[in-house]
């Protein structure tokens, strides 16, 4: 985070601080934010922290987290081709399986139900234009 502070400060100097204090330029406020970020990062890094211990103590299954994240990325990448209903169905099914939903019928019913329900709610009721993709003819 300290590095981000340095980068923000550097960029703010390039934008220009203006004539301080009469007429601050576009880089003045980001510069102050960069300095604050840098100072806070230095202060935080100098304090003893128990958070690493907390992280080590947590019995987590990192695989599930990565799997869910990958499903989110797939939702974005596949959307233009497959459309909302199909992609949401696939992704929610994949997530359900990843987090331990056993069998096939249960996750499938959940996936179809949630994708159709959110489609009806948002696209039909709230007029949010959700991508149709392959199912263009079925979902007008």
């Amino acid at each position, binding site marked *: 985070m300290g590095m*981000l502070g340095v980068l*923000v400060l550097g*960029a703010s100097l390039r934008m220009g601080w203006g004539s*301080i*204090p*009469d*007429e*601050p*330029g*576009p*880089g*003045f*406020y980001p510069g*102050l*934010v960069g300095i*604050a*970020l840098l100072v*806070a990062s230095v*202060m*935080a890094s100098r*304090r003893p*922290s*128990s*958070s690493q211990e*907390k*992280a080590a103590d*947590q*019995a*987590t*299954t990192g695989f*599930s987290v990565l*799997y*869910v*994240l990958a*499903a*989110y*990325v797939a*939702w*974005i990448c596949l959307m233009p081709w497959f459309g*909302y209903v199909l992609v*949401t169905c696939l*992704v*929610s*099914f994949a*997530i*359900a399986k*990843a*987090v331990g*939903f056993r069998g096939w019928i249960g*996750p499938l019913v*959940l*996936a179809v139900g*949630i994708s159709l329900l*959110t489609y009806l709610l*948002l696209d039909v009721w*709230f*007029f*949010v*234009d*959700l991508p149709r993709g392959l199912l263009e003819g079925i979902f007008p």
Partner: protein
Amino acid sequence: LSGIEQFISGLLVALAPVNLFACLLGVLLGTLVGVLPGLGPAAAMSLMLPFSVKYGPLAGLIMLAGVWYGAMYGGSTTSILVNIPGEAASVVTCIDGYQMARRGRAGAALALVALGSWMAGTLGMAGLQFFAPVVGRAALYFGPPEYLALLVFSFVVLSTLVGQDQAKGVMMLTLGLFLGTIGIDPISGVPRFTFGPTVLMDGIDLVPVAVGLFGISEVLRLAGQPHGATQAARVRLRELYPNSHEARRAIGPTLRGSLIGFLCGLIPGPAPTISTFMSYGLEKRISPRRDEFGHGAVEGVVGPESANNAAVIGSLVPLLALGIPFSPPAAVMLAGLRLHNVNPGPLLFSQAPQMFWGFVASMYLANTVLLVLNLPLVGIFARIATTPPRILIPVVSVLCLVGGYSVRCSMFDVWVMIASGLAGYLFDRYGFPVAPVVIGLVLGPTAEANLRLTTQLLHGNPGEILHRPVVLAFLVLAVVFQVAAGRVGRTKKPMAATSKVEV
């Protein structure tokens, strides 16, 4: 118009079918959010923003407030029945609430909490009715230096109260302030941190960041944990009657909790959570039955629950009167109001009185609806609370994804949301509070505008601040708070336990 006439006209506005529907939907969803240990009020309110657009500003505001307020009610149900706090402000309720349930007094605990929350909400609304216009009128005399000083004070208090380490709080706050600078500088027109593509020219939207930090990160946390089955205590309607002894014991804590909660709501920070700890501490200190605390004391359940409901109402005073949100849900409400081109602040009461009074009246209705809703449906809510993560995670994931997309129909926002979610998950694991990021993002542009105006007003002479008593008062308060926080910092362990507060 007198106050009563304005309230009656507000009541008529609130009784319009669309506003009643928004009220019902908001409190129902809020109760579900409070019950489910996944989404918090801020994320749920963010998801409701696109829905609120369809019904106009007042209905949108009513719906968002209903979600926030309902979440406070819902959180108590799971705390008492299954020992799982639906959100941070219900952590304290678990201590004695679950013990009451184990002793067969779950129904009485739920009924007393519902009645106490209703009373706290009603008293809080009366306070809002009185204080918000008064604060608004006082704020009419605020110039940019006063607003800037108020923001500095808010930042100091927020970074002190949220999380275990103030340096981490400041770091997260400045990260939010930095995110708020992304986009075209409104004065000079210079693009800042946009890295070329036009997609960042409008800046980073609050909704994907809030949904990511609070919703997606919670989903990732749930996905990474081993899951176990949870059994809820069954409660029948006829069991919902507290005996006269319990009812008498609940009166004092309800009134004290209401006052503590409302006052906590007026200061920056995770007011509902802090108010519950303060209320519990006070009740334990003054109770003649101190030994009962931790084993099912009525006072330990009713006081904190009354406090967190009153704190939500108290938080609305600075939001509506000053246009400054002191907590993430309030920040989302501000975003919702701006989405409808409504700017809360001192002029709200004179320029849009129907909006304010309609909102006040609808909150009275929401409070009563929650009471009616919570008692008979408590068994259903308890069963919903035990929804296994294998169902909860896919459902919440889809709601987050589609919610992040639907605000601007932008896949870029979904990328921002996923990145925020991953960042929130990692921040949480390493003890960094995420709430200040949202506050910083929302208040950053306001802080910058007031900083620029202040430097111009002072004509290069910072000494002129000495001629502005309000500025001086806020700055002195900030210093005093910082010094006091430094002294008690090492003894605030109980608060640190809920560092992931107010989501």
